[in-house]
């Protein structure tokens, strides 16, 4: 059974009561929230995700809740809770769904240490994964959405889950998070995309999420072998350019982008070194022309 098969009332009932237990790639999450924005966000963006036995195991038990006690008089706020404990400062209730998404990312990076987790978007084509490790504001998610719009399979727009020792990337297809101008850019580039409500005035500016393609969600159990590591950099107005970069530099960028490298130590070093050795490594600059950008990546398929 998938989330879309739940009646809207049942979805709200589960979220407000025992929780909605849903599969997110390799992990199971139990989600609770009384906020309508969370229910509508889940109904829209997680429609194809598998529902799990409500009484079964969940890797993460999370909730997005309104304040308790006197805080409930301080405007409408939303708290992200993990195992019942608030983990961050509250945000305005209008940001309840983005807060859930950020909170789930935190859960994975803080707890899923069975993987080496790299801050990177990952897409796949022809059985090979393209890793786009990059800091915020480098255009990673925009590129990811553009590639997915043109047929690349979404594994993640944010977290590359790499199997220690094997180097395969485990998918976690969830909504693609867009910010500010990239929201309109992707809406124009991908008219068929399902984009949720724009949430303004977050810490990251205006945020909207793109629903992951059905095929990507259904193939959420298919790992992919990395074929390319590309470090993207968005620079408004600059020409599109994809150039080879040294493997040593690419390796160090991956180390810098890994959330839990120090947790795994030598095993992480070996895994990343093997991964880099097997991949073509490039630096990519683009100024906003997404057609050119996608064409450059499609050329990689011939290498």
């Amino acid at each position, binding site marked *: 059974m998938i989330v879309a098969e739940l009646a809207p009332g049942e979805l709200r009932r589960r979220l407000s009561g025992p929780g909605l237990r849903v599969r997110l790639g390799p992990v199971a999450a139990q989600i609770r929230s009384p906020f309508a924005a969370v229910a509508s966000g889940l109904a829209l963006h997680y429609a194809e995700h598998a529902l799990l036995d409500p009484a079964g195991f969940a890797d993460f038990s999370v909730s997005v809740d309104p304040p308790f006690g006197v805080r409930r008089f301080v405007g409408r706020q939303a708290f992200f809770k993990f195992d019942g404990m608030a983990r961050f400062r509250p945000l305005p209730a209008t940001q309840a769904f983005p807060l859930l998404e950020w909170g789930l990312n935190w859960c994975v990076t803080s707890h899923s240490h069975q993987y080496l987790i790299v801050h990177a978007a990952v897409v796949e084509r022809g059985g090979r994964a393209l890793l786009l490790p990059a800091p915020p504001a480098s255009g990673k998610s925009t590129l990811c959405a553009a590639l997915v719009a043109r047929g690349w399979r979404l594994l993640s727009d944010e977290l590359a889950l790499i199997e220690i020792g094997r180097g395969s990337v485990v998918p976690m297809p969830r909504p693609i998070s867009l910010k500010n101008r990239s929201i309109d850019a992707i809406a124009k580039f991908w008219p068929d995309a399902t984009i949720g409500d724009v949430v303004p005035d977050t810490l990251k500016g205006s945020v909207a999420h793109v629903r992951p393609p059905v095929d990507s969600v259904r193939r959420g159990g298919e790992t992919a072998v990395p074929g390319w590591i590309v470090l993207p950099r968005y620079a408004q107005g600059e020409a599109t350019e994809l150039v080879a970069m*040294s*493997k*040593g*530099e690419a*390796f*160090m960028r991956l*180390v810098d982008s890994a959330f839990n*490298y*120090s947790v795994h*130590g*030598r095993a992480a*070093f*070996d895994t990343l*070194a093997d991964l*880099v*050795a097997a991949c073509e490594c490039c630096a990519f600059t683009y100024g906003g022309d997404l057609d050119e950008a996608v064409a450059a990546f499609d050329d990689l398929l011939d290498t």
Partner: protein
Amino acid sequence: MENRTWRALAPEAIASRSFDDELVLYNEATGSTHYLSVLGRSVMLAVLAHPSGVALETLVRRVADDSGVSLDDALAQTVERTLAELSELRLVTSTT
């Protein structure tokens, strides 16, 4: 040229991987990861090849052979500086 002998500080703790003329290292003793370009790579690999220690003069000769650079005082000073940096990173140590 001074008469010191250089060796890896904890060779059993060092994992390394070469990518063309670059070397990346993981030092389990410190938890640090290092990137070495051409000269650093050449010096570090020469030190690792001699677990019981290697004289500076031998190191300089090997680096000259590896890199095709002429064996002279300037190269010796450069290798010494590189060794000092590797020592600060706790990758190598010396004895007199």
